[in-house]
């Protein structure tokens, strides 16, 4: 209660400083929020593309259906595999004529069907990465009736490198902005401590514990961080509404991200305040 009273009094005593640090944190986190929104939408798009990742095994002509059936059951039991679809030669020709309409004449005049039967293998989420895809392809190649295996190796690898870049960029930018926020809250708290250095010295003289002295500053950091987090949320949400309504369809981030972001901002405020207080109080005793 005393800590809350003191924290509020400290914010009231230097409102400009409080507003400035809250606004700075808000804007830093706003940029982080925008980046989060972008990263989330990139991730959604990549997940959609990932769902299309398939390994196709082309079968030699004349492979008996019973052998294919046994192989299909085996492939389904691979840990990476979510489903296997058998495409017969006839179905392959039908699909090709449907998809490549400009060659429909060529397809209708064929005397012999040149297209091979195939097994289309889809992968479970979490296994749509280059290593898992390569592993499944190798195992499919080991069947003697499999003529060739294709899985669009280049673009599978490209998707994953894109995702890695997006992840690394989020970490670096997020870390940089978090650092800025830590420094801002730290400076605000340090100034608040300087403004009350006389009181702190008296508290230490009469035997107040360090916890008692620290608490109002930790609370002040927490409140500043929380206010900054809420401001960042408002700005990010407003920007999203504007973009989504006017020129680009984008998805809003999951609630858990928002809650984690605001709670993270509050925690960040408190931790940086704690760091500043510890630094300021250090050296007051030789012990």
């Amino acid at each position, binding site marked *: 209660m005393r800590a809350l009273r003191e924290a509020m009094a400290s914010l009231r005593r230097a409102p400009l400083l409080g507003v400035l640090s809250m606004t700075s944190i808000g804007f830093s986190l706003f940029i982080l929020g925008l980046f989060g929104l972008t990263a989330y939408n990139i991730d959604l798009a990549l997940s959609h593309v990932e769902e299309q990742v398939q390994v196709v095994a082309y079968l030699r002509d004349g492979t008996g259906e019973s052998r294919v059936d046994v192989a299909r059951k085996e492939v389904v039991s691979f840990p990476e595999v979510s489903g296997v679809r058998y495409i017969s030669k006839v179905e392959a020709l039908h699909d090709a004529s449907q998809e490549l309409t400009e060659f429909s004449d060529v397809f209708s005049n064929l005397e012999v069907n040149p297209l091979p039967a195939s097994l289309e293998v889809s992968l479970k989420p979490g296994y749509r990465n280059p290593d898992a895809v390569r592993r499944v392809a190798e195992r499919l190649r080991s069947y003697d009736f499999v003529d060739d295996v294709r899985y669009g190796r280049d673009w599978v690898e490209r998707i994953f490198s894109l995702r890695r870049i997006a992840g690394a960029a989020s970490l670096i930018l997020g870390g940089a902005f978090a650092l800025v926020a830590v420094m801002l809250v730290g400076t605000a708290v340090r100034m608040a401590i300087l403004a009350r250095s006389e009181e702190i*010295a008296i508290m230490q003289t009469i035997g107040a514990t*360090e916890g008692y002295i620290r608490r109002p500053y930790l609370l002040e950091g927490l409140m500043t961080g929380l206010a900054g987090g809420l401001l960042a949320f408002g700005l990010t949400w407003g920007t999203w509404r504007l973009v989504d309504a006017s020129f680009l369809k984008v998805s809003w981030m999951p609630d858990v991200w928002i809650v984690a972001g605001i709670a993270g901002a509050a925690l960040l405020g408190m931790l940086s305040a704690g760091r500043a207080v510890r630094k300021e109080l250090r050296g007051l005793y*030789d012990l």
Partner: protein
Amino acid sequence: MPPFLRNPAGGSRMIRFEGVTKRYPRTGAALADVSFHLRKGEFAFLTGPSGAGKTTVLQLAHMHTVPDEGRVRVSRFSSDSMRRKDVPQLRRRVGYVFQDFRLLERLTASENVAFALEATGASRRKMRQKVQQLLGHVGLAAKAQSHPSELSGGERQRVAIARALATDPLVLLADEPTGNLDRRAADGVFELLRRINDLGMAVLFATHDAELLHRHRDVRVLELEHGSLVYDSAGEEAST
């Protein structure tokens, strides 16, 4: 018996300096091999010219700093085994009064005393009772609602003494408490500290007020010069 004397410490020696040397990086030695002790309930002047090391002695007894050599023992606390987290407990047992009062100007006299009680975890009810009692004890019950700026120097020092007594200390360290006061106010503060001492609290009173020392020749005198204890009227353990 006033509440600050309800739990006197065991043993007869309240403060013990054992071969204490303290050096500061910039100014060099502040104390050199100083040994003395202050008994429970004893009153002593700590005197010497400016820079002799009086404040260093008080700061060591308050564990604001630790000796480079030797040992300081205060009640059950010892500088060689003291941990950072023990410091607040020690400070509650050792009251400190400054020459410049160090009152918070935005608070009234009673709030300044209550500030010490609140900071050491007293309940609201206990705080109200004790603030009244302490201000009454220092003769300022009628000025409880006055701010420091409305009080004379002597009255401010009395509020500071009331605040120092709030945590029921066993010993009071006074660093030139009369240094900023006129003769009459200084005598009043001295008499107050004597009254507190009469009730059983040890007092170490740092001063270079020659007249005060001369008028109270019955009081034990510890004299410092260039960081060395050059005279102890009790004749015990003077280092030179």
